[in-house]
């Protein structure tokens, strides 16, 4: 119940294309769903996040789509660029005893071809 399943494991996209990464969760207690971007040798950095009371959130070229009934959410990267090549992690968070516990997906390695 605490797992977050992420797919695909790796993704290759042409420059200008759309990258789509999917995640699914089980525990309905999760109430915050962030996406992190990680470049080699660096720690993950928050990219965009959504709460379950909205179905979509867009920030620039990055969009999260959220389907509460299906317990699924996805990251869409529009007009993908070579600089977007990185590993992307979805996560699900719930408040527990005054703080937030995070469960991470296993990551998607994205490569955008020039």
């Amino acid at each position, binding site marked *: 119940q605490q797992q977050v399943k*992420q797919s695909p494991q790796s993704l290759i996209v042409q420059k200008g294309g759309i990258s789509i990464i999917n995640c699914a969760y089980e525990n309905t207690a999760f109430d*915050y769903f*962030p996406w*992190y971007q990680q470049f080699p*040798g*660096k*720690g*993950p*950095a*928050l990219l965009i*996040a959504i*709460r379950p009371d909205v179905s979509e959130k867009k920030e620039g070229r990055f969009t999260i789509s959220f389907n509460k009934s299906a317990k699924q959410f996805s990251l869409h990267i529009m007009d993908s660029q070579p600089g977007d090549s990185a590993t992307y*992690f979805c996560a699900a*968070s719930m*408040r527990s*005893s*005054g*703080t*937030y*516990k*995070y*469960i*991470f*997906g*296993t*990551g998607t390695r994205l490569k955008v071809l020039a």
Partner: protein
Amino acid sequence: GAGVSQSPSNKVTEKGKDVELRCDPISGHTALYWYRQRLGQGLEFLIYFQGNSAPDKSGLPSDRFSAERTGESVSTLTIQRTQQEDSAVYLCASSHTSGRAGTQYFGPGTRLTVL
């Protein structure tokens, strides 16, 4: 402002030795997390600290792992009698729980290699 810092950035040790990893969180952040990231894998939760409350140690893989935090400042993660399977990047993150849903800010990690 300064982000989360971790030291050392790299650590190579021999099997059976003890290692200590350090994390300096963002000033004012009450929550601090440790994660382990094996090569090509996701983030594995180890432990978190929230203010002066008892830490949640539910993610520690064995009793060889321990962590301490003094108040809301520096934290150290200690691995005793290291094994080759302990080789990984150890990431620290901090968050201000009154902020945007407790957003975590990660440090650059410590890459541990056990020979």
